[in-house]
């Protein structure tokens, strides 16, 4: 075995078709004007548009047909995330998909079917995980007592404002456990929105204190730990796919400007100091895209293996950095225009700053990759 090892890359017809549909849909329904129209809307997305996405079967894409899903694998969601990223289309789709994956991977019991059916029917769901900003921390003080009453708050909960369901990461008998909480169980004022750097996204602090859990709502057992690892890797991958799409759109925006803006009597795109960094960005995006679909190739319905873990981490590290690079240069290469709120470069650099911090930044993943790649005898 070598440190490079698995380089499988396959893309089936279903994936290709879904990618095509998703790209067309996102391009038509989420032009930049529509994105901007949502920037200061409370939920950050258009409900009618969300219903169309539900109609396309996207929230339930990877859920079994028995709960109203399409019965496809989670790999099929990757292209959708990329297409959404390209169009900077928000909506709670990624949070919802991940919440459903977490629960479905944590238990096969029928009592979660109602939750999964809701997701497939388009009720947004989200995972309440972090209690501090460190993705490498396993702090968990949001706990329930003997009578099933939760105490504690979670931060950075994505799409909390829209969620009909919360999957709260808690503990039971010293092991990670999940608690399913409906939005209507939350006391008034429990959701305090964050002000995010990326205005196309939404997240909040959610205080679950006082929520009474029914025994059915608690998912415990060793499988939860495995499911959480998978959830976090899938989260990294879908975020990477989304970032890859955004980076492509960002590069297109920059290149378009370089082809139209003149200085010193020449199109600025002819200057190599601008041209060559664009090529670097293109290659960084190409690498990210290759990692993303390589990782998608390795996803199974069962828990993720070592190769898939390596692939997801590489995808996230690469895509996050590619988008940061693309966004940063987009601002600079637009000159004074790039410093304005009006210029779309701000949308991309803001997305980059947000995206790079979801599910661990590049350093976080590279540190873990080092252990995976260098510490096992090859």
């Amino acid at each position: 075995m070598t440190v490079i090892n698995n380089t499988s890359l396959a893309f089936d017809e279903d994936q290709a078709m879904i990618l095509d549909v998703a790209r067309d849909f996102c391009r038509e329904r989420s032009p930049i004007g529509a994105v901007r129209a949502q920037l200061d809307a409370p939920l950050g997305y258009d409900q009618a548009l969300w219903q169309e996405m539900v109609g396309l079967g996207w929230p339930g894409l990877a859920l079994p047909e028995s709960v109203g899903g399409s019965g496809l694998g989670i790999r099929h969601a990757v292209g959708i995330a990329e297409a959404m990223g390209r169009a900077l289309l928000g909506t709670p789709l990624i949070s919802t998909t991940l919440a459903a994956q977490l629960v479905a991977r944590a238990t096969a019991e029928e009592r979660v079917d109602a939750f999964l059916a809701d997701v497939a029917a388009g009720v947004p769901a989200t995972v309440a995980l972090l209690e501090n900003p460190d993705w490498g921390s396993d702090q968990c003080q949001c706990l329930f007592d003997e009578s099933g009453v939760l105490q504690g708050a979670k931060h950075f909960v994505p799409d909390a404002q829209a969620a009909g369901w919360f999957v709260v990461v808690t503990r039971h008998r010293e092991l990670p456990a999940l608690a399913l909480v409906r939005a209507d169980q939350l006391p008034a004022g429990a959701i305090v929105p964050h002000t995010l750097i990326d205005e196309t996204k939404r997240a909040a602090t959610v205080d679950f204190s006082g929520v009474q859990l029914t025994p059915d709502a608690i998912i415990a057992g060793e499988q939860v730990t495995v499911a959480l690892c998978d959830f976090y890797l899938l989260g990294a991958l879908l975020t990477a796919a989304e970032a890859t799409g955004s980076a492509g759109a960002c590069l297109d925006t920059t290149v378009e400007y370089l082809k139209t803006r003149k200085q010193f009597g020449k199109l600025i795109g002819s200057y190599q100091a601008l041209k060559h960094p664009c090529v670097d960005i293109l290659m960084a995006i190409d690498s990210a895209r290759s990692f993303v679909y390589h990782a998608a190739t390795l996803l199974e319905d069962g828990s993720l293996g070592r190769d898939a873990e390596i692939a997801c981490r590489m995808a996230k590290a690469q895509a996050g950095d590619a988008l940061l690079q693309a966004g940063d240069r987009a601002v600079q290469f637009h000159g004074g225009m790039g410093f304005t709120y009006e210029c779309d470069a701000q949308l991309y650099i803001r997305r980059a700053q947000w995206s790079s911090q979801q599910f661990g930044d590049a350093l976080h993943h590279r540190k873990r990759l080092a252990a995976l790649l260098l510490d096992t005898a090859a």
Partner: protein
Amino acid sequence: MSATEQELNAFRQQVSAWLADNKPADPGFLLPQSFMEVGTEQQLEFLREWQYRVWNAGYLGMAWPKEYGGGGVEPVFQSIVDQEMRRHAVPICFNVIGLGWAGPLINHIGSEEEKARYLKGILTGEDIWCQGFSEPDHGSDLGNAQTRAVRDGDEYIVNGTKIWTTMGNFAKYMILLARTNPNAERKYDGLSFFLSPMQVPGIDARPIRKITGEYGFTETFFTDARIPADCLMGAEGQGWKIAMQTLQYERGAEAGAAGGLAFVRVLINDMIEELRDMTRDGEPLLRDPVVRDQLVQLIMEEKANALCEKRGAIQALGTDYPFSLQLSHKLRFSEYGRRMRQFAVGLQGAAGGLYVGDAQARQGGFWQRAYFNNFSTTIGGGTSQVQANIIAEHVLGLPK
């Protein structure tokens, strides 16, 4: 009809067995890591014999037409051979300018007569090919090449100087770019392309010593050299178009090569294994957090290159930036190679300052030499900067 998976697997096993049996023993002298490093007769004869053996076994030029010495089978068979060659770490098939550039060119656009005259000798290694494109004053600006070819009866008289001619002193033929019309309106239109003999009076290939201290290329002087007029490929004035097509093969952007290894691949895995016993600050080197992070970045880059190569074959994933993966192939691999090798030397502590010939140099100075030689790929075949221009203009559509 295309081969079944079963057939391909059986073929792979057969190739693997043959390579295991036929891989030459270490000759006891330094072997070239690429075709641009053949500096001595000894190296040449060793590699020539190896290439002949590979061809004779039916493992070279498998997809080239049978009547010209090829195998006449689907390209997938040659791909399998190449993969297995890499895996078995056998020597290179050195006649790369023939196998990889001139050969595919002749195969695709050559006349029947040209095919019959040249292809087989390329495969057997009997006819060594070189490339006369670059000139002392015109390298990246190849379209400005000034070497003159003047028609005189059934000959052309050639005058001028080519440089950096890989294997110029060993070659029997040269793909030559020369100016037949100095008055053409566009400089490109004055160029013509020749399949020129090298062993004629008036052609003098003088070896140049390289950065490594070894030899491998020449400065090639043409002084009233007379070459037959039927050496002209295509028509006068088509030289630039043909040269550009040649460069597509050279940069790996277009298929058609006969196969065999042009380079000994230097992989990061080899480097990591080689470094396992090294220390830094008295601790195992691979425990150093900074080194670890940099290694992971390089591993990712190598893996990304491999994955991009694969993705290039998946049409549905190549629509965003058409030809991006094909046109950036050379830039990706060559620049990565440079950084990785430089890093490998840098990790060696005081031993990083030793060179080939020093008894204490790690692996005989392999990494130092490999680092230097890597510049042949970031400069030769169009520099990295020129590649970046090409990608910016042709993939991103940025102005010249």
